[in-house]
């Protein structure tokens, strides 16, 4: 090994032996070992790393990785009704075109001068999200909707100086896990029960539970279980009566037809932008947003970067930069608000492209179409003997609960049968929501045709017979 000349690797230009010699000479070193002189012998790894043999050519690498990927079956091959926080939507080709451009894909943390494009694209993202949400302040994306919710609640606690939050019990249990971990140790999380008949928040329970120690009331709208919280205005009014903030997590793609929380008293709004042009990527397509009105009391509590517009010395030029940078951990370390770091900026740019392509009419038509397809699916599935749609009477968006108690089969059984017919059935809720019995969460979006839904219904009917 020692005597074999090393390969000049295409990713390592200076691995040419003559260049190595020349550079060593220039710095007066005999070998690269000289540079590691500070590392004590006992901390040195004295053997080569034990890693697989490299695949040096692209042909070998592609064959290997594609060989592994070949073992996957994607939602292009199977008919999928999975959602639960990660959704199949139409992704315009222009979204992929823009986020694949090397100028955006491989940039990072440049300043507003050499990276003007990134600043403008993200300012425009914030601005279009602002129109969707009817709010004046939207952050540069943080990691995902879970982080956005957890941070929004921490913001509410700082703003109110209070140490407890009330969270709807229908909240995504994984998100709730994140929230509990993130609010520890100083902020308590208490759950608000829902009405078994329609899933909506139990207002009487909220009235009984809420007090002057609560920083926020939190709910998702549409909820994780798909129904739309139609008492939203009453909930926010109750929160406000007790000096608490109303924090709402929304699916941004619903806002072409559903009113944004700003219209029913939401103070801090959060969510995930994956639906706005991001591939599911096995869960790798998430980005979080947090929004509020332009109240400095709230704005100064955002941990994320906020890009703002400013004049330059030349008339007619838009300059961009960080708004109130001194809030951030970049500026003042632990004295900042939580922390900020690499998160999901490219997805912010992509969501901007998506919203610009969709326009007002596109967002409206999209929301209408999803609601129609979903209601059609709910109606047809509820007609299958033994199968029920427990919250059928509520308004829904994109997701709904299907109960199989009357079939004598578990969701796992049913999904196994569906899988055998090339269908990914809904997410099994029996672990996260045991009260719902043998239930699953099915998702329908604009990618589903009537034939797709009819096929699901026909297959389900057969499976539960």
């Amino acid at each position, binding site marked *: 090994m020692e005597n074999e000349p090393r390969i000049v690797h295409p990713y390592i230009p200076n691995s040419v032996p003559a260049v190595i010699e020349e550079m060593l000479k220039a710095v007066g070193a005999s070998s690269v070992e000289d540079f590691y002189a500070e590392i004590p012998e006992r901390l040195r790894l004295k053997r080569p790393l034990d890693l697989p043999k490299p695949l040096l050519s692209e042909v070998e690498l592609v064959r290997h990785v594609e060989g592994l990927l070949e073992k996957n079956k994607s939602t292009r091959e199977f008919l999928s009704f999975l959602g639960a926080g990660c959704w199949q939507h139409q992704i315009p080709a222009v979204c992929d075109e823009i986020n694949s451009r090397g100028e955006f894909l491989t940039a990072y943390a440049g300043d507003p001068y050499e990276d003007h494009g990134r600043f403008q694209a993200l300012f425009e993202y914030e601005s279009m999200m602002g129109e969707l949400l009817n709010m004046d302040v939207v952050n540069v994306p943080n990691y995902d909707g*879970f982080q956005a919710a957890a941070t929004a609640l921490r913001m509410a606690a700082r703003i109110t100086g209070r140490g407890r939050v009330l969270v709807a019990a229908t909240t995504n249990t994984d998100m709730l896990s994140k929230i509990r971990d993130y609010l520890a140790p100083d902020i308590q999380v208490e759950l608000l029960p829902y009405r078994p008949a329609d899933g909506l928040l139990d207002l009487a329970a909220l009235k009984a539970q809420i007090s002057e120690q609560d920083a926020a009331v939190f709910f998702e709208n549409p909820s994780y279980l798909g129904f739309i919280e139609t008492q939203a205005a009453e909930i926010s009014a109750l929160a406000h009566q007790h000096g608490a903030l109303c924090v709402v997590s929304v699916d941004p793609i619903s806002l072409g037809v559903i009113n944004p929380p700003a219209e029913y008293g939401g103070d801090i709004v959060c969510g995930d932008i994956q639906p706005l042009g991001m591939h599911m990527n096995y869960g790798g397509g998430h980005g979080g947003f947090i929004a509020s009105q332009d109240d400095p009391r709230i704005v100064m509590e955002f941990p994320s970067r906020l890009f703002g517009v400013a004049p330059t010395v030349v008339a007619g030029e838009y300059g961009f930069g960080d708004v109130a940078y001194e809030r951030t951990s970049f500026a003042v370390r632990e004295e900042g608000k939580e922390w900020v770091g690499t998160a999901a900026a490219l997805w912010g740019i992509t969501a901007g492209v998506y919203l610009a392509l969709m326009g007002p009419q596109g967002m409206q038509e999209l929301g209408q179409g999803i609601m*129609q397809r979903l209601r059609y699916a709910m109606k047809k599935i509820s007609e299958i003997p033994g199968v029920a749609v427990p919250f059928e009477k509520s308004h829904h968006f994109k997701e709904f609960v299907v109960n199989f108690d009357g079939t004598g089969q578990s969701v796992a059984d049913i999904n196994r049968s569906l899988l055998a017919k090339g269908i990914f059935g809904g997410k099994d809720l029996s672990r996260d929501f045991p009260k719902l019995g043998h239930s699953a969460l099915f998702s329908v979006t604009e990618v589903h045709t009537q034939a797709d839904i009819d096929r699901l219904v026909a297959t389900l009917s057969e499976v539960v017979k």
Partner: protein
Amino acid sequence: MSIKIAKKPAIKRFHQAQWDEPVIFELSQPGQRGILLPEVEAGIREEVGDVAATLPDPLRRKIPPQLPEMSQIHVLRHYDRLSQENLGVDLNIDIGQGTCTMKYSPKVNDQLARSPKMSELHPLQDESTVQGILEIMYRLEQMLKEISGMDRFTLQPGAGSAAIYANVAMIRAYHAARGDAARDEVITTIFSHPSNAACAKTAGYKIITLYPNEDGYPDLLALKAAVSERTAALMITNPEDTGIYNPRIAEFVDMVHAAGGLCSYDQANLNGLLGIARAREAGFDLCHFNLHKTFSTPHGCGGPGAGASGVTEVLAPLLPRPTVEFDGQKYYLDFDRPHSVGKIRPWYGVAQNILKAYAWIMSLGADGLRQVSEIAVLNNNYLLNQVLKIRGASMPYAAGHRRIEQVRYSWEQLTGDTGVHSEEIGQRIVDYGMHYWTSHHPFVVPEPMTLEPTESYSKTDMDEYVATLKHIAEEAYTDPQIVHTAPHNSTVHHIEHECLDNPDEWAVTWRAYKRKLHSQK
């Protein structure tokens, strides 16, 4: 007439793209469409009618969102133009973003990740249909274990700071499980990334920050004074952002262990140490890698990145759930982890970047990874040798010692001589199609500049970068005004940024800008 074309000048005559592009709302043309949607079939419409119209009044949106209305080519053109007004690794000699390891992100890996067999996977699919991606995640974990010496990894964190936070969450859970509630302090150093301090603070800890001695790292006595029965953890980078390796790191770790604390290794600066030195041998309990730094996945204008947190066997039960396991036949997700800190993010990590990092390691192997580090370190020491020849530049701490993979330089002397500040040099270098970053705050190194040349840049690249820096330093001495007023050849000129700190004037959205402008009139 001669056809002879003169040789190019030594310093590039660059001009950044300047499309004078309006804000996107100004491009709106009423009625235009950028994309159409699949039509809802008559069979559905007849069955259910206009469902959205049945929403109760307070929930029904009456005025559609005031988004721009644009045809497809106009959206494309606008964003293509904005992209041209941006510099990434693909375009520039990106050695100026120290600490961030701006290495080449191989195109073949991006291409592999765009396969629908990756991009169109839903995270809840039956495990039998995702064996390929699970195997990739499992294999990457085995590789990272070998590279670090740690016993288990989670690939769930969304990026580096999220991995730091995951480590803090596990530290907290570890002490809580032992009933050791009095530990409420985390020790870090000023040259470790601010997120070490900020994540620990968010999780409820008091922060003690150690400052460097003349060798560039905190001395053992400073640590000794800080460590106590209240110490939950030491969270430290090594080499720190100065590129100086702390040779007494194992003693630091031992001292914290002796007091009952844990030690967490921020390995954002791993790029010079692959196959050279590992977290395990130095005694760390936790570490983290940034897959978008050392392991080449693209930086994406600030994410999505991918983080990986590694722990010893003792801490492994605390890892976020689920973990990826292999039973000898099939790969599966293990949710049954009662001691887990829970979820750090939705699902299992930034899977497409996990794939890219895996492919990168597979394309290099053990020898290649070591070569990456050796050349990254050689490049850095070559670069610093050249930079220090520039009038007004210096390298604080540990004089005469080598550096690992980056250096935090100082222009203090140049500023004293000319009145030109480091930020201004950073704005001037934009005029030559390059970039550099000063430092995290506070500026412990006065007038800082942090350069990290990685393994991706050639000697010629570094010579060009240094020649440009030297040229600007000369400008500072001879014609400081041209530096003070930079940039001159960029997309925009000097930004009057005072409004960004004034609540009456700042505007984070176009609607806020229009509203505030109106109220000024």
